C-alpha cells in the first residue's frame, strides 16, 4: 500500500486537466506529456512537470507506449493515469506500465482485457446472473446460423461487432430476407473499423434508453455503486448530454441495476472505478451491454450528486486503500446534467472547427462547474478529439439543474471557433427532453430539421434585434475599412475605438 507521489497523466485536453487538478488537490505531482501541437495546452501549464512525446499525430505521440514509459522513468513517476480515449482501455499499455514498476490507475490488465471483449463480457454477465440482451453468446459465421438464431429471438434483431463501439459494424434487421446482406456489410464495416470482422446477434431493444451504473471497487473485495447516469441523448451513437439521476429510474430499479452491476464486477474481479452499461426497454426491463473499464467522460455528474471525487477515489484505490464508504453511505443529492461541448459547427453538419479562441467568457455562479481545457488565446489543434469542455450544472432537483444549465449556456461565449453550444440550447428547450421523455433515437430525430430548429421556432423580437445587430456589425466593419483606405494603412481606430465602442476592430 504505497502512497503515490507522482502520476504520469498519459492524456491531453480537458481530461488531463481534470486529473492534474485531482493531483494538485491531493498534493501529488502531476507529470504532463505533450505532442508538438500541445506545447501551450493547459494541461502542460497546470502540471508540475511536462515532457515532449513527439510530433502532433496521436500515433506519433499520445499512442506511443514506449515514449510514455521512457518519460515515466525519466520523470520519476510512480503511477500512470490513462484518462479516457487513447490508451485508456489498452491492456498492453496497462501491462507494460505494471511491468515497468508503475502503479496503473485502473483495473488489472487481464480484467481490462476480459471485460473489453464484448463476448467475454457477456459471458461474465450471464455467469453473474445479470440480465443480458437475448441473443447468441458467440459470433455468428454464416447467414443460415444467423437466420435460425434470429427466428428464435424474433425480429427485429441487431447485428453487432464483437470489437465494436460507436455504432460501427452495427445493423438492425427487420426481415429474414435482409440477414445475409446485413451480415456481410456489418462484418466488413467492423473489419475496416476494428480489424476484427466478427459479428454477433442480439434481439433489438426497441426505443431503448441507455442507463449506466458507476461502480467503485477496491483491491480488498469491497464494491459499491454510485447510482446511475442517463446517457440516452446520443447523436449517431455518441453521448452528448448525460445526467444523474435518470429521470425514469425508481429507487427500486436503481437498487436492482446497482446489484446487477456489482455482481458483474465481482464476477470479473474488477477493481478501481468502472461503468456497467445497460439498455432499458419500454417496460423498464434492463439488459447488460458492456463494461467501460476506465473513467468516463460523464463522471462529473456522478461527482456532483454524490460529492465523491472519482479521480481521487481511483488514486486511493490504486494505492491499495480500502474504500472509505459502504453502500449505505451513498445517496444521490439533487440532480446534475452535463453537456459535452465540442469544437464543431452544428449549423454546418457538425464539421470540426479547430482554431484560435479569440474570446472566452466562462459561465459561473451557483451550481455551475466547467471542466475545460480552454483559455483565451488557445489554439484548438486539428489533430485530436474535438471535445473542448464539459459543462456541468447541479440543482436540488432536475428542473433547477436544467434551468441553471440553460443560463450557463447563455453565459458561455467562445469567440473565434464554432462550438456545439447552440445544439444544447436547442435540446434544453425541447419539451420531450424537459419531460424526461426520450430514448437513444430521440436526438437524431430532433436534429432532422436542422440543429437550429424549425422555422416556426422563430421569434419576431429576436429576429428584429438580430437583424439590427447584423446591420450594426456590418456598418462598423465597413466604416473602419473606409477610414483605413482614406487614411493610410495605419489605423487610428485604436484610439477612436476606445470612445466609440469600436474596440472590436482595433484588436
Amino acid at each position: 500500500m504505497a502512497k503515490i507521489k507522482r502520476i504520469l497523466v498519459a492524456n491531453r485536453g480537458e481530461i488531463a486537466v481534470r486529473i492534474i487538478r485531482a493531483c494538485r488537490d491531493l498534493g501529488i505531482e502531476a507529470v504532463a506529456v505533450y505532442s508538438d501541437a500541445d506545447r501551450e495546452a493547459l494541461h502542460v501549464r497546470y502540471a508540475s512537470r511536462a515532457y515532449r512525446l513527439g510530433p502532433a499525430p496521436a500515433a506519433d505521440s499520445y499512442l506511443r507506449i514506449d515514449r510514455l514509459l521512457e518519460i515515466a522513468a525519466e520523470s520519476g513517476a510512480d503511477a500512470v493515469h490513462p484518462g479516457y480515449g487513447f490508451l485508456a482501455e489498452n491492456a498492453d499499455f496497462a501491462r507494460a506500465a505494471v511491468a515497468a514498476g508503475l502503479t496503473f490507475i485502473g483495473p488489472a490488465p487481464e480484467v481490462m482485457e476480459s471485460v473489453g471483449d464484448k463476448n467475454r463480457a457477456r459471458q461474465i454477465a450471464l455467469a453473474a446472473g445479470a440480465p443480458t440482451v437475448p441473443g447468441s453468446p458467440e459470433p455468428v459465421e454464416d447467414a443460415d446460423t444467423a437466420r435460425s438464431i434470429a427466428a428464435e429471438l424474433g425480429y427485429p434483431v441487431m447485428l453487432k461487432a464483437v470489437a465494436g463501439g460507436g455504432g460501427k459494424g452495427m445493423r438492425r434487421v427487420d426481415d429474414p430476407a435482409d440477414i445475409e446482406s446485413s451480415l456481410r456489410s456489418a462484418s466488413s464495416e467492423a473489419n475496416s473499423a476494428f480489424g476484427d470482422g466478427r459479428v454477433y446477434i442480439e434481439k433489438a431493444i426497441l426505443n431503448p434508453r441507455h442507463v449506466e451504473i458507476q461502480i467503485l471497487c477496491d483491491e480488498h473485495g469491497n464494491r459499491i455503486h454510485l447510482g446511475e447516469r442517463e446517457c440516452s441523448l446520443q447523436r449517431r451513437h455518441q453521448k452528448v448530454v448525460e445526467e444523474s439521476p435518470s429521470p425514469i429510474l425508481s429507487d427500486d430499479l436503481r437498487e436492482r441495476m446497482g446489484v446487477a452491476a456489482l455482481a458483474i464486477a465481482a464476477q470479473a474481479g474488477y477493481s478501481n472505478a468502472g461503468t456497467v452499461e445497460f439498455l432499458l426497454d419500454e417496460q423498464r426491463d434492463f439488459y447488460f451491454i458492456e463494461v467501460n473499464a476506465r473513467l468516463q467522460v460523464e463522471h462529473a455528474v456522478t461527482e456532483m450528486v454524490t460529492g465523491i471525487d472519482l479521480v481521487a477515489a481511483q488514486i486511493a484505490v490504486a494505492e491499495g486503500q480500502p474504500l472509505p464508504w459502504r453502500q449505505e453511505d451513498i445517496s444521490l443529492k439533487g440532480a446534475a446534467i452535463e453537456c459535452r461541448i465540442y469544437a464543431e459547427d452544428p449549423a454546418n453538419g457538425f464539421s470540426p472547427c479547430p482554431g484560435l479562441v479569440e474570446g472566452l467568457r466562462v459561465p459561473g455562479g451557483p451550481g455551475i462547474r466547467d471542466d475545460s481545457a480552454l483559455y483565451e488565446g488557445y489554439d484548438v489543434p486539428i489533430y485530436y478529439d474535438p471535445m473542448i469542455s464539459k459543462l456541468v450544472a447541479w440543482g436540488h432537483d432536475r428542473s433547477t439543474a436544467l434551468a441553471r444549465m440553460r443560463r450557463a449556456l447563455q453565459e458561455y461565449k467562445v469567440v473565434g471557433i464554432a462550438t456545439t453550444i447552440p445544439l444544447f440550447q436547442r435540446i434544453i428547450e425541447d419539451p420531450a427532453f424537459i419531460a424526461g421523455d426520450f430514448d437513444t433515437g430521440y436526438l437524431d430525430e430532433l436534429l432532422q430539421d436542422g440543429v437550429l430548429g424549425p422555422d416556426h421556432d422563430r421569434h419576431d423580437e429576436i429576429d428584429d434585434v438580430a437583424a439590427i445587430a447584423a446591420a450594426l456589425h456590418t456598418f462598423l466593419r465597413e466604416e473602419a475599412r473606409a477610414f483605413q483606405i482614406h487614411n493610410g494603412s495605419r489605423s487610428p481606430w485604436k484610439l477612436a475605438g476606445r470612445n466609440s465602442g469600436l474596440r472590436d476592430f482595433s484588436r
Partner: protein
Amino acid sequence: MIIEVQLEGDDTARRYRVAREDGEVCLRRLDDDGDGETVCLDWRTPEPRVYSLLIEGKSYDVHIDENSADEEVLEVHLLSRVIRSRASDARKRRIVKDGAGPDGPVQIVAPMPGRVVKILTAEGTAVTRGDGIIVLEAMKMENELKAPRDGIVVSVLVEEGQGVEGGTLLATIE
C-alpha cells in the same frame, strides 16, 4: 450606408440606412412599406465580436461570428438562439455582383483549418452542383467540400497531404 440583412428563412431582405449622427450610430429601416423611424442605438462592444444593445429598455448581449470564408455570412447568437444571416453594404454588393454574378467564378475556400486528404477532381474537370471537389480532414473527421454550382474546375491550389488555414482558397470553379 445602406445595409441589407437577409435572415435565413425570411423571404425578403431587410434594408437599413445606417449613419453616424453626432458620433452616434443611427439606423432607419427602409423596407417596402416605406419610411420607418430613425433610432440612435445604445450599443457597446465590451468584448471582441460581442455587442451589448439596449433597445426600449431591453438588454441584449449579442455575439456575432463571421464565416471565415465569407465575412457577409453571420451567425448572430442571441438569447439562446442562433440566427443565420447575410449582411452587406448594398452598394458594395452590387459591385461584387457585377463582377461575379451567378455565372461568375466561384471559389472553394477551406471552412476550417485542416489537412487536404484527397483531391477529387483534377483541374479542367466539369462538375455539377454537389459534386465533391476536395476532402479536408480535421479532428478525426473528414469533410467533403462540394461544388456550389455547375461549372469547370479551373484551378486547384493545394496538394494532397497539405495543411491549410481556415479561409485558404483551395480551388476555383467557372
